[in-house]
């Protein structure tokens, strides 16, 4: 229950017109742009998944050529991962990190602008491939050669889009590290940082280590196709499996890049709505760092069936199983935060708890898949599709959406419509399970992934899955409506917004002025993280 301490209205003028957005160096505006872009891309990727689920609704090929179907599968993933999930995470970071640490803005505001505006450009490159000879990429988002090299004119566009996305992410990561390292208000020590900031610091280091590797891998694809190299061509002395090693060396840390910000959001939401401090703050920091560190040693669990030597398979099995330990520690710490708290279940809390339940389901199947000999049956089936969608959709996406509901009143100064929020949650939570749970069954029963058609034994479950998908997709429109309605108006939000909210960001007005903390605040244990 803090009074709002700081009002910097005397120069709260904002730029106007389109220049405000094109040339923005303001972390709040840039954060908003990232989030709006992410929401649009979420529906673009979502539309592609609707094409997939429409075709899979019944056995037989009804709507799309199998080649186009493969493009849908491929671009759905690329758009969701690089266009929706990552920009949404960076959007939340941009909005919240400076306010959480008492800084006036990000360390490098112009670079921040560039990081954002690269994204629409990169996606124009990628999506333009649909109109080219040979079509859009159709070899899976994992781009394995030799298949990906059969892509027609679109290959350079795919590669350059990836390069630009990587540059955007790396610059964003640099900005976040510089901001947190150099611009914390006096008294804001590292161990007083909100956990959302910690998870973003760690994510930023993962980005710097992993994205260049991805860029290297796709560059090697480009030179194999156009400049006579044979990195991945056995006839030239190369090895297609080497691409997989390089890709997944990036790819596994990438999934933690995706999830750690969502974990950070959950670590802000649960203490607030439990009215209790986060349990085991220090362990949470170490657990997150351990997960990030270990993530570099498990990549080949995506490749258990390539024909690795026994020692390799065993090493990666043990390392993969090991990651379950710090992940479990985080889940238990969140539960201990709830335990003996005084909980209320507003929409952000519903999404956070939804993540706890359903990310855990994804975690369990992940552990199952880490057991190499059994993965020989699971690999490349719908069991895998079920696993990663559980950790991504009711995992990461619920975390991000929870963050949006949590912080919308701060950003806009208006409370969102709680009834609509709850409706959005329940529709999403139920339909997401109808959509993804049966995928475990059909995967175990023998349905491979990335296929447009299947034997009739899988028809019944596929029909249910598709129905779940349609309901889930439509339900997300409620989020758009909630956001628009909230921006337009609503019950006025206080500075603190939520009864259990603690932290510097909750001392600012709702909405905060264009420039905040131009004078650093005073930070004591009382004003620091929950």
């Amino acid at each position, binding site marked *: 229950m803090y009074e709002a301490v700081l009002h910097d209205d005397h120069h709260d003028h904002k730029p106007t017109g389109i220049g405000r957005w094109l040339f923005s160096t303001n972390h709040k505006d840039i954060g908003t742009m990232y989030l709006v872009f992410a929401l649009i891309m979420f529906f673009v990727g979502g539309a592609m998944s609707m094409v997939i689920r429409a075709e899979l609704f019944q056995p037989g090929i009804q709507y799309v050529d199998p080649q186009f179907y493969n493009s849908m599968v491929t671009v759905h993933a690329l758009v969701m991962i690089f266009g929706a999930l990552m920009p949404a995470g960076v959007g939340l970071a941009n909005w919240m990190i400076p306010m959480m640490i008492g800084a006036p803005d990000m360390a490098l505001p112009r670079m921040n602008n560039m990081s954002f505006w690269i994204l629409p450009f990169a996606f124009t490159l990628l999506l333009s491939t649909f109109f080219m000879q040979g079509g859009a990429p159709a070899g899976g988002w994992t781009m394995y050669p030799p298949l990906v090299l059969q892509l027609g004119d679109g290959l350079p566009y795919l590669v350059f889009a990836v390069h630009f996305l990587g540059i955007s992410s790396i610059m964003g990561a640099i900005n976040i590290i510089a901001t947190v390292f150099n611009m914390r208000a006096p008294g804001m020590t590292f161990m007083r940082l909100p956990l959302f900031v910690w998870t973003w610091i760690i994510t930023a280091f993962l980005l710097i280590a992993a994205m260049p590797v991805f860029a290297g891998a796709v560059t090697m694809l480009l030179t194999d196709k156009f400049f006579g190299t044979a990195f991945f061509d056995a006839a030239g002395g190369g090895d297609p499996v080497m691409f997989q090693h390089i890709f997944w060396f990036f790819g596994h840390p990438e999934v933690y890049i995706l999830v750690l910000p969502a974990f950070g959001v959950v670590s802000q939401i649960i203490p607030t709505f439990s009215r209790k401090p986060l349990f085991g703050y220090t362990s949470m920091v170490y657990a997150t760092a351990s997960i990030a560190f270990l993530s570099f040693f498990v990549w080949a669990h995506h490749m258990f069936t390539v024909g690795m030597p026994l020692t390799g398979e065993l090493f990666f099995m043990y390392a993969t199983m090991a990651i379950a330990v710090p992940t479990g520690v985080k889940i238990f710490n969140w539960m201990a935060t709830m335990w003996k708290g*005084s*909980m209320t279940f507003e929409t952000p809390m519903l999404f956070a708890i939804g993540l706890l339940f359903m990310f855990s389901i994804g975690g369990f199947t992940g552990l199952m898949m880490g057991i190499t000999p*059994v993965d020989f049956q699971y690999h490349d089936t719908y069991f895998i599709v079920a696993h990663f969608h559980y950790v991504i959709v009711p995992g990461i996406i619920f975390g991000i959406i929870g963050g949006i509901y949590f912080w919308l009143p701060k950003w806009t100064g208006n409370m969102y419509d709680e009834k609509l929020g709850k409706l959005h949650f329940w529709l999403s939570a139920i339909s997401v399970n109808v959509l993804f749970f049966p995928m475990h069954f059909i995967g175990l029963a023998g349905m491979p992934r990335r296929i447009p058609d299947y034997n009739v034994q899988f028809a019944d479950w596929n029909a249910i899955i598709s129905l779940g998908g349609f309901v889930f997709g439509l339900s997300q429109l409620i989020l758009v409506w909630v956001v628009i309605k909230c921006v337009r108006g609503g019950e006025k939000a206080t500075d603190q917004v939520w009864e259990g909210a603690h932290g510097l960001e909750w001392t600012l007005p709702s909405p905060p002025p264009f420039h905040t903390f131009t004078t650093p605040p005073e930070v004591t244990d009382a004003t620091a993280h929950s």
Partner: protein
Amino acid sequence: MPVDKLKKIVLGVTTVSLFMMSGTALADYMNVLNLTEGVTPTSKMVYDLHMIILYIVTAIGVVVFGVMCWSIYHHRKSKGAVAEQFYHSTAAEITWTVIPILILVLMAIPATKALVFMEQTGDAEMTLKVTGLQWKWKYDYLDEDISFISSLAQDSNDARQMGSGIDPNTVENYLLDVDNYVVLPIKTKIRILTTAADVIHGWWVPALGWKRDAIPGFINDNWTYIEEPGVYRGNCAELCGRDHGFMPIVINAVPKAEYAVWVEEQKAVKLAAAAGADREWTKEELLEKGKAVYAANCVACHMAEGQGLEGLFPALKGSAIVNGPASEMIMQVLNGKNMMPAFKDLLNDVDIAAAITHERNSWGNTVADTVQPSDIKAAR
């Protein structure tokens, strides 16, 4: 009354159950729930491991979700709960770090045993070489010098075309049937080599208990020992292009005596084909055979009316090569080009000659000559 997680679970179960009750029988859903036990020692080991791990994670889930549900119910503000303010406990942290580690070690032991067992590829009694192609499998029985291609069965292939009007439910083993089964003897240790000719494929028959990638330029070493006779079906398990979903695998595992008979039959067929290559074929014979060969080997890319697929596969109808000199067309078919494989390794002289003749006489192509098997033999 705040809606809590218990209600959510009930709602979820009810929704799924309602879907299940509607329409078809429950059994249709229940059969398609779990991994198969399979018919090999490997598959059974893997199944048992899968079930153990499934039980363990389910048990953990029940405990964890149970505690969460209890907390949600009991520690609610609306129920009058007042928040305590503890935020650490070293004892708790140690407990929930050590216990998971112990559980994991317990899981790792049988898992390691199973993996070591699966790596023993030595002392095999016969070897089958599997080559993945876009989009079919080639099988070479290395000890018997038998070789054939196995493609999606015609009825499935017809039904799966967009707008075919054929209901997949009327096709037996839709998308899981092929023209040439892989016949294998039971109770024999069989070494299975997997490789590919173009892109990475994956060879998977769930009943055997494993899958392995088929990688161009590399050979992977696997083995199996099938205990029970029967027909076992599988799929390509690595995205390999447009028809990745349409190149299944069918094994017919038979008693050893029956296998020996089949081997002899295959050798006889091969001799007859070689003999066929030495004689002169009539145009009618070539066209009839060519139509079948085309349907099994060429139609996936060049399509039923020779029209190809815009941007991906060239049309044969009105093609310069098809309507040009026969020798050029023969070289292209034998040696392949870009995504088109080199058919010299895949088809015999009779089949190639027949297919070429068919193409040069179809869809308005006016060359109307014939190409004899001896022409192909000479060109190799």
